[in-house]
């Protein structure tokens, strides 16, 4: 893996992370090209496009064509990074399935508007099913970092190291850090155990990791030993860490702001059921319903019950 100087990214949040990391990746790897569908600035493509205008392509509001063109660019050895809004994954799903995954093209999709990032945008602009859509596709890798440094590592490894389609699902609100730049290690498909414990396991992904951490603190203060896992890669899922948690603790609570039926919750259940069945409970965006308009991510998380309090309740239910 490219040695990343994490220190130079320290303190960056949200879109600034992408701006800096895309620019640096563009400098390191001249085969990278940046593709937008009137979306280049939405996920921090500005610095790259200013520095490398000849390697930046804006396809207008036409995501299907952008992703198909990405396959063509990859056919000639380029590494296209396609910036999308999370909700358009559905529109261009067939291009992603056929042109990127089936055709085995080394292409990257970067979204920085995921789940409730566009809270007031309502159903059409919130992406709660995108992971479900992509999790079924062979060759696809799905990474959802929990912190700014993790986003940097995911971008480097997903774009420069992994050969094949990668969905980089970065919330634009990434801010809170859990890691130190001095000793952070990231590997696609290898979950990070943030805290060891023997009673119950919390497995979370993306922004939800911070909610899980709060829940772990509350449970800890009640004398419950909690294992806390950051599942930054949804696909391929880290089976080993899940099986170990199922064997060594009494049950698992999964936490995510996407729909559990197709995302983290389902992935964890599948591994647990087939290996070492224990109780698994989900806190997630509810299945089989659409979202609502809201003023903020926090308000929508509260509305849908994606809270530390509910994680604590589910964990206690497992232990009683």
């Amino acid at each position, binding site marked *: 893996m490219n040695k990343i100087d994490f220190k130079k990214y320290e303190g960056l949040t949200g879109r600034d992370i992408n701006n800096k990391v895309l620019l640096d990746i563009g400098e390191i790897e001249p085969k990278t*090209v940046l593709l937008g569908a009137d979306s280049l600035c939405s996920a921090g493509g500005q610095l790259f496009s200013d520095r490398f205008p*000849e*390697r930046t*392509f804006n*396809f*207008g509001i*036409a995501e*299907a*064509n*952008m*992703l*198909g*063109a*990405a*396959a*063509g*660019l*990859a*056919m*000639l*050895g*380029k590494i*296209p990074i396609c910036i999308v809004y999370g909700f358009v994954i559905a529109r261009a799903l*067939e*291009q992603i399935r*056929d*042109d990127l995954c*089936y*055709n*085995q093209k080394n292409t990257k999709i970067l979204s920085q508007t995921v789940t409730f990032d566009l809270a007031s945008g309502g159903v059409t602009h919130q992406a709660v099913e995108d992971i479900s859509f992509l999790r079924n596709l062979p060759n696809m890798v799905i990474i959802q970092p929990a912190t700014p440094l993790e986003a940097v590592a995911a971008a480097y490894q997903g774009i420069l190291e992994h050969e094949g389609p990668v969905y980089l699902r970065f919330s634009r609100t990434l801010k809170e850090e859990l890691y130190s730049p001095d000793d952070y290690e990231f590997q696609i498909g290898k979950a990070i155990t943030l805290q060891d414990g023997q009673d119950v396991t919390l497995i979370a992904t993306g922004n939800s990791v911070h909610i899980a951490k709060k829940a772990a603190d509350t449970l800890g203060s009640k004398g419950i030993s909690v294992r806390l896992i950051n599942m930054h890669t949804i696909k391929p899922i880290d089976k080993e860490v899940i099986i170990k948690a199922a064997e060594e603790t009494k049950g698992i609570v999964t936490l995510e702001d996407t729909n559990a039926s197709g995302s983290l919750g389902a992935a964890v259940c599948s591994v647990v059921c087939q290996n070492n069945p224990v109780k698994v409970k989900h806190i997630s965006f509810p299945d089989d319903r659409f979202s609502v308009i809201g003023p903020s991510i926090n308000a929508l998380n509260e509305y849908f019950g994606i809270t530390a309090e509910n994680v604590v309740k589910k964990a206690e239910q497992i232990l009683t």
Partner: protein
Amino acid sequence: MAIDTELEKKLKNMTIESKLLTMKMFHESGQGGHYGGSFSSAEFLIVMYNGILKVNPKNPKWEERDHFILSKGHVCGLFVAVLALRGFLDKEVLSTYDEINSSIGMHTTLKIPGCDFAAGSLGHGLSAGVGAALAKKLDKISSRVFVHMGDGEINEGSVWEAAMSASKYKLDNLIATIDRNMMNYEGNTESIMPLEPLEEKWKSFGWAVKTVDGHNIAELYDALSSLPLEENKPSCIIVKSIKGKGIPCMEGNWKYHYAKLSDEDFQEYYKLIEECKCN
């Protein structure tokens, strides 16, 4: 550029041979196949692979090659027959058509030597062609990208998204060819979703356009060897053709878009095509 008479005769016979191989493939598999669209594109594919495309059958991944994307992936049978005649694969491979995990079947796969893009679902090829042409421009590679589409296929909106982007980026190294056989799967293109005036549509999207007779080898060769049609513009060649060309009951008959023939019909039609060979 005018075609040499000997080459023209050779390509005529190769067209017949490709059709015969395709028919055998379809019939012997027991599955049938896409006769209609295969026979409308036969002369075109033969001319492309034996007179136009810079390709190397011994090294299908040759870096300086022209890229050919068969966007109407359902004519895979004809495509592999043409590739076999050009030396990309052994003719024996054709007998594996539709076998379990075969490289060849109803639609193209990446397992076919010389196939850079696996297609099937329609409306994908032109976007990939745009990307490949952009990459060639970026790296100052002089080879070209051809994308062959069906006319029904261009009902897809993604084709027109791609058309817009090709002219935006002045991709004169990109050539879209449209098999204009006037037939969708379920009937005439003009009754299902009218495409005319087709030349004007492509022109208005910023493309240089030319219409040719898709069953006239000399005309195809002439048009396809004089590209781009205009500098700084992508080229669109509308290849006028007859669906099911060569077998009277299939000609212009959408019911033979896909067909499974009885043994008797197969024998009769095979002979009809075979008799078209010239000495």
